[in-house]
């Protein structure tokens, strides 16, 4: 397999080498200017929307968004906490996207990961916190990975559309969670808020040194970096992108499309499953219906804003987390409804998608 990959990558590599440093710098500039420009245009459209639909002053609203999301160390920490699960759920979309798969089931993988982590946590409670946290992470990643791998397998072996199957699997996961926490896994102590038994305070994931932000943020950033390295710097990552470019060509080249699809889907699900583990181990302390909070769906938005690039997921997640963090202040000081942040998110999503067609224009014009 590696020999085939070398054969395919050889012309690409020479092409890369031929391009001058200036050329690649311009490419980078293009990749920076277009999304930033799209976001700025999105904000401008939002300002017009505010002027037409509400009495709020756009500049004051933007000032509030900045203040709530990034204006102080306190706000920045809150934004980072919000971003932590979103980094991981966005990866659940961005990794399969390299193979041309549109997986939108991050919420389901998160829920399964959270449930598995909670069960592992309370079963092993007392076995030493480091070990328990490690085991919880492993359980969460395995459960989430397995969940998205089902979609991958259905796609590869049965031709089932992965978008639909991953979405439907999410509903199954949520139903399983609700059944488990109100039935077989219910803590008898949790009377009016059905939940699994607690994993124990000693096994909770702590804060990062010097910050009021839990370690889940670090997991997210490391996962994004590993994913980027895997996708852009390794043979399997290259194979993924070949499959994404043309499945037939990949098969003809002898790539093990099925195995790679399953492995990529497993990694994607593992990322979202880890987000579920973090939600249980750093925030909730047990699994309950509260872990199904929509992070998986916001992850889809972020992955698309990041154009499925794992490194770009980091700023995209921070941006959306900051906007999300502003919801409260917009309600309290401008009297705007909760849906305001959804309007901003929707507008930015559209301007980013619309800007897709701008890529590559520079080269044709020179």
């Amino acid at each position: 397999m590696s020999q085939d990959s070398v054969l395919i990558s050889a012309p690409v590599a020479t092409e890369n080498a031929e391009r001058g440093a200036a050329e690649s710098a311009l490419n980078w500039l293009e990749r920076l200017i277009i999304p930033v420009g799209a976001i700025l245009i999105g904000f401008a459209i939002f300002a017009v929307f505010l002027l037409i639909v509400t009495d709020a002053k756009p500049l004051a609203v933007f000032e509030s968004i900045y203040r709530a999301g990034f204006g102080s160390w306190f706000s920045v920490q809150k934004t980072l906490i919000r971003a932590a699960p979103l980094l991981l759920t966005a990866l659940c979309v961005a990794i399969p996207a390299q193979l041309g798969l549109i997986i939108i089931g991050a919420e389901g993988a998160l829920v399964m990961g959270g449930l598995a982590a909670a069960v592992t946590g309370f079963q092993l409670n007392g076995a030493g916190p480091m070990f328990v946290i490690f085991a919880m992470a492993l359980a969460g990643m395995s459960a989430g990975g397995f969940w998205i791998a089902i979609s991958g397998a259905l796609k590869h072996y049965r031709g089932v559309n992965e978008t639909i199957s991953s979405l439907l699997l999410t509903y199954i996961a949520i139903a399983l969670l609700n059944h488990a926490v109100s039935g077989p896994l219910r803590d008898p102590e949790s009377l009016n808020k059905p939940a699994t038994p607690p994993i124990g305070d000693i096994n909770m994931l702590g804060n990062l040194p010097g910050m009021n932000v839990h370690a889940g943020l670090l997991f997210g950033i490391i996962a994004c970096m590993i994913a980027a390295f895997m996708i852009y710097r390794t043979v399997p990552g290259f194979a993924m992108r070949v499959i994404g470019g043309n499945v037939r060509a990949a098969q003809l080249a002898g790539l093990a499309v099925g195995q790679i699809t399953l492995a990529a889907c497993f990694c994607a699900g593992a990322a979202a499953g880890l987000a579920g583990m973090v939600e249980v181990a750093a925030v909730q302390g047990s699994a309950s219906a509260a872990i199904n909070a929509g992070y998986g769906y916001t992850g889809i938005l972020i992955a698309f804003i990041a154009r499925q690039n794992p490194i770009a997921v980091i700023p995209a997640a921070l941006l959306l987390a900051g906007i999300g963090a502003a919801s409260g202040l917009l309600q309290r000081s401008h009297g705007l409804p909760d849906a305001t942040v959804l309007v901003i998110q929707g507008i930015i999503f559209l301007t980013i998608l619309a800007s897709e067609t701008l890529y590559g224009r520079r080269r044709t014009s020179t």
Partner: protein
Amino acid sequence: MAINRRQMLKTAGVSLALTQMGSIATSAFAAKTVNIGFIYVGPRDDYGYNQAHFEGKQSLDKMDWIKAVDQEKVPETTDVQEAMESMIKLDNVDVLFPTSFGYFDPHILKIAKQYPEKTFLHCGGLYKDGVHPKNVGSYFGYIDEAQYVSGVVAGLMTKSNKLGFVAAKPIPQVLRNINSLTLGAKSVNPAITTQVIFTGDWAMPVKEAEATNSMISQGIDFITMHVDSPKVVVETCERKGVFVGGYHANQAKLAPTKYLTGAEWNWGKVYTDYAKMIQGGSKIPNLVRGGLKEGVVKVSPYGMAVSEAARKAGDAAKGALASGNFVIYKGPIKDNKGKTVIAAGKSYPQTDIWLESMNWLVEGVIGQV
């Protein structure tokens, strides 16, 4: 002036505090503007749980020394921790009312430890003395008393003797409402049955509508509910021409001809009492509970369809409960599997902690936990 205020507070405090295990010192707030923050899990105008709290907040508007801010649709995740901290840091809030049940553990407990000088008052009655931080308080009402009255009215108004109950989850609070409604109805009409359908979650409008429709097609002619927003159920009942009993807030507007009565929260009274305690600098009890007697819950005014006999019986039940002498859970009571759960001669008054772990349905309820 100060003495007058103290006296007034004393009466307010006594009427409010049914169970008092500890208290929160708030002397720092005396005679200055108090900033209060409310947090709701759903929209302010849901005709249900959140609207009931929002209306409670609005009743503070007439007190000019209070500045109240609020935030809606805050999920039970780090979002609510962030909302609380943001209110504390950016709006200088002194007292917080995070109103959703699931906000308490771990979110309020965590933030309350970080801000010991702030007061956190949570709706749900979960405070445990010695376990939870001292600056946390909890309040809740025995709303099943109002459901009992609703049951009395429904029991006399039903023609088919079949009542329906659309419920979110089989948890003790919900089961207690179902049981009290059924016991109320059976007290005036032993032949009635209550069909219960659990939707699985607090806000499932589609499932709630399906449940309502399927009950109506079974011949059920009175439906009530315990879900966050009763709007869909109430509107469906009005359209299909069956009686409906409200919950959380007053939904009479949504069913002008079919609304019989309803079990409502009276948070306006609770919040006003708290505000007065805060202003007077008196101690706030950590645990505040009450029912019809204390004014924490109320019964909606009877709708136009309610007969004279049903009004009389409803008023009698309301009066008995408001006097505090009437006990709903008085043996012998059997569950719907035929097992005696409360033996003859045994009774559990409203404040009895045993009732709070209820996991059975009373005889006459069709459905299972």
